[in-house]
């Protein structure tokens, strides 16, 4: 987690944002490599535990996307 190495833990809904991320790839768009994706079956799966846990483990940010 140095100056130029940001870590954003990203919880993406399998049906929505995960698909958008796939499409972004298919479309060859480019974006910063800061995100680490954890696939979840639905944004409803998102528990506060995961957000706290990610911050505890040193994530610089948490992103949940449905």
């Amino acid at each position: 987690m140095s100056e130029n190495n940001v870590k954003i833990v990203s919880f993406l809904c399998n049906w929505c944002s995960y698909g958008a991320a796939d499409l972004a790839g298919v479309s060859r768009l480019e974006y910063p490599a800061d995100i680490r994706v954890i696939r979840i079956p639905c944004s409803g799966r998102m528990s506060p535990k995961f957000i706290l846990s990610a911050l505890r483990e040193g994530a610089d940010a948490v992103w949940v996307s449905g």
Partner: protein
Amino acid sequence: MDTYTKKIREIAKDLLASQKVDRVIGFEMGTIPMAARPVSIESENDAEKLVFNSLCAMNLANYIRKPKGTIAVIAKGCDSRNMVNHVVEHQVDRENLVIIGVPCHGMVDKSQLALEVEGEITAYDEEGQTLKITTAQGELTFEKQDFLKDNCRLCQHRNPVIHDYMAGDPVTEQELEDPFADVNEIEAMSQEAKSTLFEDLTKNCIRCYACRNACPLCFCPTCFVDESSPQWVGKSQNKTDVDTFHFLRAFHCAGRCTDCGACVEACPMDIDVRKFTRKLIKDSYEMFGWEAGLDISKRPPLDTFNPADPDDFIM
């Protein structure tokens, strides 16, 4: 308050004598002055033990979960709201519960009062809104209004929201100019100031879990801090672990907390854990128009799925 005590004893006696209930849960005076403690009585003769005064701050909703038989319980405004919660959350059946409502004038903040008094308190009494305290120096009187607990000052539901009996006439509810002034004050602070505030707040925590145990909302068979697969929250007094505990404990109370103050009352380190829960009370109110424990037919907003919920509710 004597009239309350008298009435409570009468009702309790009746209920036990007629075998309408198996037990009555209320308060009795403790072994040291200025302490009231919960008591469970099963015979009408014991009804004389029951008292009610400004020291009965504990939330008796904590003692009524999954009861054996039918029980009667004394309930202030906040307690009654927690009883509503319990019924909604299937912790007790309404038909097994007889609620003896007590319109409340607020409870006394003992630690504040203690600051005003030197030496050991040998006796305590109250008459109307006046508190009488006896120490080695003699008798002192205080106005109760000046020593109300913080949550009681902000209380807008002093009358029980459900009851089967009432131990007195309803009291006038307080009109507050800004019920969330305390939360607003913190909200207006800078990020750093907030950070420091909460750092100071939790630094004395010894993780005794008294706040959790006193809270009528905490009834999970295994608390998240005790989970072991994986053990994601450490059990030490590591600051992150302490903060995680307080954060998630508060979060579990979102939309359910009645601001009864049991957590603060129970804390041996005088940590004002309401600083966490008050924010969620405000958010529930502002986002969903929701106040916990007022309606026995409705589940808290975070328990239901509604496509019309505000988008930022998850935050």
